């Protein structure tokens, strides 16, 4: 635990007052000025660019961070803060923000179908439901302009007609090349470059096809092809409803961010709204989720617990063996044992997956002479395989830390135990293990927390499988909470960021609680 004591000694230094670094003008002071100048320059540059793109939140955060940095490092009294500041800023930016944002999302219905704001949803519904009038013609179209106003000109039944947003298409004098209007009297035809610069105006323009509004409006998407379109759904801002122009059905917004009709038909897309604790309760109350959830919860505890116990037991055993001076070539063995730790876990897991393949895997084919043992596809064997692979991946770490801890146990303590007539086993049980636990217990707790969320191993090795036969969600016998969330919230086809965030928060609370209890227990160990 020595490496996390940044704050402690700094606090002690704070009492030295007059001896502060801020007053001395040695080489260190110049280094400090240069560093602070760089921090300020970068910070201000960040603020400026954030303002330029309109990211006000980022700009405010950076401005505050720079101001705080100057205050902390140029003040005479802020010695502890000088050490804490960088860590605090990083904590804010990379931890606290992420946590708060996750918490915010957990209380919304953000996900597929509720992806953006209400304004966007209204625009999208209107856009998707403006349809080409059935059976209508398409026309080669010319975009024309008069006094800054845009209009469309087409050949209708061989006759040149022109109109703009207010005036329906009317016959006009001009010339054409047989398919397309080339010039209209009183109007100027636009070049492609002009079309591009007025793109939005052109694609938004609807020229009434005739005096009858029901006939639809002439529009274009690419500035060359004209077609007649009419809206199927019309939005009325005054009543905040959509109305279907043919059936007359109205759709009103509900409190879950969707427009729905009286008989429950929902328009897509909806928008993101707060839904309170719904995401949190869904996991317990929804029949489809609740059953598998508790099964998975139990396995998660078993998996994390057994992973810690097995890796620690093997690591400790090996550490004791190789700590004995009678073993020859200890250094070579030790280096070899650390190898699994040196491989990227991702890669190693994939290799294990291949080796454990029922039919073509190296283990079955070579080691077991062609036996077809379903290592990853039988529920119990898959659980065993997951633990075994995790043991292979995890024991070198435990081996390392226990070796270190063993070597720090003073030899005279053991010697006096032997003089007192303690057996070898008794010495281990009463002297070595208690002393060892003082330094390793916090690591065991963090190993538990790590394995509780060991997504990569499960995802890469079994993908959570084998699947619970006939279960209504795609969760399997080796799924742990975090991989279950992934499969329910992302892999099931419809993304549910809200639900995923809610369960992540639950996992955070569980892990936090266990760690807190664990650390409280270890404090009693330290008093030995």
């Amino acid at each position, binding site marked *: 635990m020595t490496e996390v004591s940044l704050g402690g000694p700094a606090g002690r230094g704070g009492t030295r007052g007059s001896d502060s670094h801020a007053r001395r003008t040695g080489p260190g002071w110049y280094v400090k000025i240069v560093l602070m100048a760089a921090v300020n320059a*970068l910070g201000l*540059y960040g603020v400026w660019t954030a303002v330029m793109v309109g990211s006000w939140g980022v700009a405010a955060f950076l401005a505050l961070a720079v101001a705080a940095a100057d205050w902390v490092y140029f003040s005479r009294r802020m010695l502890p803060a000088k050490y804490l500041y960088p860590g605090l800023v*990083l904590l804010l930016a990379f931890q606290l923000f992420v946590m708060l944002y996750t918490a915010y999302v957990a209380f919304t219905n953000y996900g*597929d179908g509720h992806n*953006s704001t209400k304004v966007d949803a209204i625009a999208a519904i209107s856009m998707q439901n403006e*349809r080409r009038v059935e059976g209508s013609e*398409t026309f080669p179209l010319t975009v024309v302009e008069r006094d800054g106003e845009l209009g469309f000109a087409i050949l209708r039944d061989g006759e040149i007609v022109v109109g703009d947003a207010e005036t329906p298409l009317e016959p006009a004098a001009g010339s054409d090349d047989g398919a397309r209007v080339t010039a209209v009297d009183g109007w100027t035809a636009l070049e492609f470059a002009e079309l591009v610069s007025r793109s939005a105006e052109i694609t938004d323009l609807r020229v009434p096809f005739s005096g009858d509004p029901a006939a639809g409006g002439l529009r274009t998407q*690419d500035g060359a092809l004209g077609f007649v379109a009419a809206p199927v759904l019309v939005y009325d801002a005054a009543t905040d409803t959509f109305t279907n122009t043919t059936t007359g059905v109205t759709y009103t917004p509900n409190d879950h961010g969707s427009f729905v009709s009286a008989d429950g038909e929902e328009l897509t897309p909806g928008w993101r709204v707060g839904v309170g604790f719904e995401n949190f309760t869904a996991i317990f109350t929804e029949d489809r989720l609740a059953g598998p959830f508790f099964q998975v919860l139990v396995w998660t505890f078993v998996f994390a617990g057994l992973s810690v116990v097995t890796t620690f037991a093997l690591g400790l055993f090996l550490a004791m063996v190789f700590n004995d001076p009678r073993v020859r070539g200890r250094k070579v063995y030790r280096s070899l044992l650390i190898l699994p730790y040196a491989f990227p876990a991702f890669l190693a897991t994939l290799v294990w997956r291949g080796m454990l393949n029922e*039919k073509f895997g190296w283990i079955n084919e070579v080691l077991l002479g062609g036996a077809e043992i379903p290592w990853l596809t039988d529920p119990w064997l898959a659980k065993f395989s997951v633990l075994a692979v995790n043991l292979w991946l995890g024991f070198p770490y435990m081996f390392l830390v226990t070796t270190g801890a063993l070597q720090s146990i003073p030899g005279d303590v053991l010697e006096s135990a032997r003089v007192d007539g303690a057996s070898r086993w008794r010495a281990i049980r009463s002297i070595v293990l208690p002393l060892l636990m003082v330094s390793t217990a916090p690591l065991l707790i963090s190993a538990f927390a790590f394995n509780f969320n060991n997504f990569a191993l499960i995802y890469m090795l079994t993908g959570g499988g*084998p699947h619970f036969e006939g279960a209504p969600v795609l969760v399997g016998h080796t799924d742990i909470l975090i991989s279950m969330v992934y499969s329910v919230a992302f892999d099931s086809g419809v993304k549910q960021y809200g639900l995923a965030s809610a369960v992540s928060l639950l996992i955070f609370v569980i892990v936090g609680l266990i760690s807190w209890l664990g650390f409280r227990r270890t404090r009693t160990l330290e008093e030995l």
Partner: protein
Amino acid sequence: MRRSILTAATAVAATLALAACAGGEEPAAEESSAAPELEGSLTVWVDETRIDIFTELAEDYSDERGIEMEVVQKASGDIREEFVQQVPTGEGPDIVVGAHDWTGEFVTNGVVQPIELGDKAAGFSDVSLAAFTYDGAVYGVPYAVENIALVRNDDLVSETPETFDDLVAQNDDTGADYPVVIQQGDEGDAYHLYPLQTSFGAPVFEQNADGSYSPELALGGDAGEAFAEYLGELGDQGVLDPAIDGEKAKQLFLDGKTPYMVTGPWYAAEFTAADMNISVLPVPSAGGEPAEPFVGVQGAFISAKTENALVANDFVTNYLGSTDVQLRLAEAGGRAPASTEAAGQVDDEIMRQFSEAAGTSPMPSIPEMGSVWQFWGVTEVELIQGKADDPAASWNTMVENIESAING
């Protein structure tokens, strides 16, 4: 002790400075891409498999039209999700190039806009347009069509029977290790089994008149049960095996250990590269009706929030839709063009044979399909492994589960 703290503090300060650099540069990059947009530039997102050809095409279009084009490479695993997330923030592209089965997700999230093809619609194959049709409107311009079919090693066999059972029986004479390989995997592969399933008359959803799908499940009933029984039989005979995934299936075919493999152009290209003599044929029927694979269509979508809708439409309909460009895309991607005129001009025999085996069933793009995939694959694996005592019952359980997943 004291020195180590100072070192740590310096390290943290350096990290902070670096973080500040990284943080500072990002908005700057966005700013430079936002500035020329006013003059009419187009941003196109493509994945790594298409980046080269689209960079070329964008340059040519840029020369032709005088419009600045920016082709941005996105990882194929992330491009779809990123598009859905970025369009609402205004940081999305004008155009995204991808697969037609994204359509449903894009439309229900309101991130794409309908595209009116006018008379050009007649120039595309029916299945490719049906693929991009959602709720009566077309949302993408198709450029390439891909599907799986039966690939035959001509050095091992030269004639292929009419039915799948005869094809399996044919191996009694040939004596290869496997009569045919169809890739599976621990989580199943419903895509590669779909031709067999459709031959029993059990398509996944009901198809509308325009070729798009309604959310009405059609894979249940007697036809589905018959297919479930058949899968169990194939598993018993060892024809299907979950341990054979794509890589292993490919290797078996390459090694000549099987005369047939049900696969797509991606592996066929490797077979021709290995100088094998192959033909591509429709998958023989197992249940009496035509065996139709899912057809995957590639195309371009236009963002709902593009500020250059006019140019974006011009690029995807008039440029990507042209015969010439469709042929170039076909050549680069090794998939048959979606334009019928271009498809007629293709001189690659394998490509032509694949598109002849295509049929009329696009892969469903409706969001309900997302609820189908995994249930489907794992159930099929259970049937193949013989884990289910009553195949028909476990097939029906699957249908119920899919239904309840769809209805939330």
